């Protein structure tokens, strides 16, 4: 397996983004008699064949528990699992594999930080700064830990364009702020936050920074040391890997100081009824048998992404967003929610007189998959005075035809509801 990795890594990065669509078998099917137009990658992206094959091989031939047996399959499983960790480390440029904790996903990663780091560091009078554009997964864990510790949760407002209110951020960041947690790319609005700048300011104020990177990973080449974030959380299934696996990156010195948050096998060195000693990193935070197969799938997804030229990818996605924004203008009563200057390829919108769910059902009949609802970001919906939006999100495998089919479907919705 490691030989194949070396081979693929030695290839020059591909700049031909349009050619990648053929790698995704799910996109070759028809839905309701139409070619599938998949515009819901911000909810969950499709897997390339390489990821599907890696999952099949791991589950079919190498399945055993990790870090336990001395037999051949257990050694293979352990090697595959740890090799996935190493590839993730390399991909995000973490200093050590001890800084890569496998979790179930972004939500679990943030809960881990909130419970373990927040739970041991926060007390009454402290503040946790978040933003108004967070996904519920970067709100609720902090609410829970604030309630337990007496700390205060402070949300930074956003502008009408859906950008962070920078002046408010500067004002609300004080010496009471112990943790700053913000989304790198907003799932509901597409807004890209100026991560490096915010991290620098937070550090200058003495705060520790947690970044929710779930939506950034499929669009950007993230370098955690360049960002200098203290924690970075992301999910496999939003970056062309499988569900059930995610990562918490954390700086080693912080992870070392943090108490474990779940107890069980794997996270211990010795157990007796008089007391237990914790395992070294990263095992300390990986109690129980992990999702080995999904971790291997994530490793394959990272290999896949590592072969892509991200400048070309960003140009491809910017062109898609521009085309979609322009064509949505043809739809009567359509209004875009989230118009940040720096925006990922996410188009959230409402249409006068047609609820987002009706839009979703109608375009689905034309084979077009979009997300509808509050996108697990109810404060964002409240901020823009809407109950729900429809959201088309574009990934590396989408093209202009996909957008044209969406617009055709939206035209049918307007016609039906006229």
């Amino acid at each position, binding site marked *: 397996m490691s030989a194949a990795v070396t081979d693929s890594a030695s290839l020059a990065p591909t700049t031909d983004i349009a050619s990648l669509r053929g790698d995704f078998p799910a996109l070759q099917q028809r839905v309701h008699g139409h070619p599938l137009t998949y515009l819901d990658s911000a909810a969950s992206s499709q897997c390339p064949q390489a990821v599907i094959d890696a999952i099949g091989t791991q589950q079919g031939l190498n399945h055993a528990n990790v870090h336990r047996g001395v037999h051949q399959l257990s050694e293979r499983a352990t090697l595959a699992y740890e090799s996935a960790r190493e590839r993730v480390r390399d991909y995000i440029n973490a200093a050590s594999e001890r800084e890569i904790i496998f979790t179930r996903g972004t939500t679990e990663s943030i809960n881990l930080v909130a419970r373990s780091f927040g739970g041991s560091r926060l007390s009454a009078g402290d503040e946790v700064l978040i933003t108004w554009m967070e996904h519920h997964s970067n709100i609720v864990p902090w609410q829970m830990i604030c309630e337990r510790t007496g700390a205060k949760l402070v949300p930074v407002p956003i502008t009408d364009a859906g950008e962070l209110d920078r002046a408010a951020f500067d004002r609300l960041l004080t010496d009471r702020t112990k943790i700053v947690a913000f989304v790198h790319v907003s799932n509901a609005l597409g807004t890209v936050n100026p991560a490096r700048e915010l991290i620098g300011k937070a550090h200058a104020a003495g705060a520790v920074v947690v970044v929710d990177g779930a939506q950034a990973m499929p669009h950007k080449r993230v370098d955690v040391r360049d960002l200098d974030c203290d924690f970075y959380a992301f999910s496999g299934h939003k970056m062309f890997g499988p569900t059930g696996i995610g990562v918490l990156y954390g700086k080693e010195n912080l992870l070392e100081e943090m108490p474990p948050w779940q107890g069980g096998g794997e996270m211990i060195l010795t157990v007796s009824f008089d007391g237990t000693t914790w395992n070294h990193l990263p095992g300390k935070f990986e109690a129980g048998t992990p999702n080995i197969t999904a971790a291997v799938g994530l490793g394959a997804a990272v290999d896949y992404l590592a072969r892509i030229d991200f400048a070309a990818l960003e140009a491809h996605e910017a062109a898609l967003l521009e085309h979609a924004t322009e064509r949505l203008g043809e739809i009567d009563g359509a209004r875009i929610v989230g118009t940040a200057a720096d925006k990922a390829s996410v188009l959230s919108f409402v249409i006068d007189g047609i*609820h987002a769910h009706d839009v979703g059902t109608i375009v689905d009949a034309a084979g077009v998959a979009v997300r509808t609802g*509050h996108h697990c970001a109810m404060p964002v919906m409240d901020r823009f005075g809407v109950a729900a939006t429809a959201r088309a999100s574009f990934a590396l495998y989408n093209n202009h035809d996909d957008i044209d089919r969406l617009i055709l479907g939206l035209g*049918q919705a307007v016609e*039906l*509801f006229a």
Partner: protein
Amino acid sequence: MNELQELYREVILDHNRQPRNFGEIGDADRVIDGVNPLCGDRMTLYVKLNGATVQDVSFRGTGCAISVASSSLMTERIKGASVDETMSLFEMVHDMLTSDANEPPDELEKLVALAGVREYPSRVKCASLAWHALRAALTGTEHEVSTE
């Protein structure tokens, strides 16, 4: 488009555009909040009883066409009906939305317009929210209902 027209029948589109019995009843006997946490839709149902009769009924809220039309059609159909008849309508609508059973019974009258929802499992909750709120109003067990 044909399948869609089966879901979005003219009656549904009409009740969505102009919902009947939309608003509050100041002296309602029962007020129930209904929420569909999956999509964030909310509605409040107001019921005024006169003995065992639904004397007046209204609703407020935001939702998709299916949810608004279902609420509107429901209030129109049950206003003036007995509580027993209303509960039996609840069962008939529930069956129509969730089972592949026979033709919907004639008693449903205009409510048969909701039959197309059955083909869209993700939308059944939109149609049934108002009815669950109604059942809670009449059985008097809860103040808030959820589709989850």
